């Protein structure tokens, strides 16, 4: 991978409109019938403006912007067939809620060799239409056996 791309920032021009259908489809796909994901009345009764999303729903938001994904950026030189997910973490200031209009910013935070593999790490922030931070996602992948061969000392 191209280590000079560390620090590169991606800001998709479009926002992501969080809707009841998108949340409902995601909740059903993970087999979760929690009424706070599916029933606006139940969500309001719990104090939310509308249905809320499961914590990992943010991955669907991020996947929406393929053109602004480091993994698909030719400059980063990722061989997608060698990629495995290594770590993922979400820090949520509040639950994502139907009606949110999310702006996404992705920053490449690290590219380094890990023995014969390479690691690519990024950070994604999600802000709402008021400019408030809703969540931050931290992810990393391993690119299997793509590290440049090491030159042996003294040879």
């Amino acid at each position, binding site marked *: 991978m191209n280590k000079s791309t560390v620090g590169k920032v991606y800001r998709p021009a479009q926002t992501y409109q969080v809707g009841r259908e*998108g949340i409902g*489809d*995601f909740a*059903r*796909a*993970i*087999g*979760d019938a*929690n009424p*706070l*994901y599916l029933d606006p009345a139940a969500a309001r009764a*719990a104090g*939310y403006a509308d249905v*809320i999303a*499961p*914590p*990992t729903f943010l*991955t*669907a938001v991020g*996947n*929406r912007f393929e053109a602004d994904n480091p993994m698909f950026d030719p400059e980063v030189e990722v061989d*997608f*067939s060698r990629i*495995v*997910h*290594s*770590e*993922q*973490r*979400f*820090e*949520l*200031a*509040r*639950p994502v809620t139907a009606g949110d209009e999310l702006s996404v910013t992705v920053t490449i935070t690290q590219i380094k060799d890990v023995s014969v593999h390479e690691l690519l790490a990024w950070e994604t922030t999600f802000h709402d239409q008021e400019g408030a931070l809703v969540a931050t996602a*931290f992810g990393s992948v391993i690119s299997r056996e793509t590290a440049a061969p090491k030159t042996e000392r003294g040879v």
Partner: protein
Amino acid sequence: VPAYDEVEVGTELAATTYPVRRADLVRYAGASGDFNVIHWNERTARAVGLPDVIAHGMFTMAELGRFVTDWAGDPGRVVSLGTRFSRPVPVPDDDTGATVTVSGKVERKDDDRRTVVLALLATTPGEDGQPVKVLSGAKATVRLA
């Protein structure tokens, strides 16, 4: 919803097993927008050295999240969820598919923030039937009243 004062450090949470079938992966691909071929095409999965089609890591993590949100009652109380992906979950092309079992315990409490940290683990049965760790070092932070 568990009350903060009643939660005790060291308490084990009952393990829960979730199904992972091919149909679940198709549905998840559509809902998440992750269409990586190794999650639905056996020919491609085997060509890159995998034993079979494998589940999306984020699908397995979503089941980890479900375990936490079911415990918390209100999913909006989850303030942090993270994991390492240690092994893939192969999903055979039959009606039963694979399973993921999530377990956890209360690791610590923060009285100032009124948050509880859960230490979690997800496994899938290996070829010999023994559990194989698929998510490791997983933690969730939940804010309780």
